[in-house]
């Protein structure tokens, strides 16, 4: 059972525009959500997180939105830059439980 799903395996966005990456989850006990970015041959790099008591968290060009009623999480990147091209993973956990990762979305930023 895939508790965290990223339904879009890939996304292409023009440089300067907004990139929106989506993530859905099924476990209502999840209370902490994270986004990671991964370049080839490197480990995932932590980007931004959000606790379930919030519905938005912003850090520079990155904003994460959480809709608990819809069990939906999204990452907005604006403006998108060529260096943002990577695979993005969302992850979630419940209390002291393990992180559960989605399958990833490959983002390509076109010049």
């Amino acid at each position, binding site marked *: 059972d895939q508790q965290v799903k990223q339904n879009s395996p890939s996304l292409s966005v023009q440089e300067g525009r907004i990139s929106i990456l989506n993530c859905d989850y099924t476990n209502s006990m999840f209370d902490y959500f994270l986004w990671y970015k991964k370049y080839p041959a490197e*480990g995932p790099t*932590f980007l931004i997180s959000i606790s379930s008591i919030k519905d938005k968290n912003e850090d520079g060009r990155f904003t994460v939105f959480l809709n608990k009623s819809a069990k939906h999480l999204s990452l907005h990147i604006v403006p998108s830059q060529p260096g943002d091209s990577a695979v993005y993973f969302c992850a979630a956990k419940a209390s*002291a439980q393990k992180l559960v990762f989605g399958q990833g979305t490959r983002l390509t930023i076109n010049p």
Partner: protein
Amino acid sequence: GAGVSQSPSNKVTEKGKDVELRCDPISGHTALYWYRQSLGQGLEFLIYFQGNSAPDKSGLPSDRFSAERTGGSVSTLTIQRTQQEDSAVYLCASSLERGLNQPQHFGDGTRLSIL
């Protein structure tokens, strides 16, 4: 360096051999995690350490897999009698404390190929 360090970065071995993967977490991080990522898949949790103890081994796929952590720092993941399905990137992560909402920081992984 300040990040999580893993070695070797690549390992190619024959089916049936044992392999040992090493992880050196960020200094001061008490929680340590092992994951693996098979081709085209997401990250699959293997085992978690808090200090030297492993309260959650639920992700280890078989008894051929074991891990230990000594001195609350370096951890080794051992795979005995390797099989071709063990081929994957094995990633280690550490965080300050598992119970709190602390992000996990990853190493660059060991790419394991079983011939």
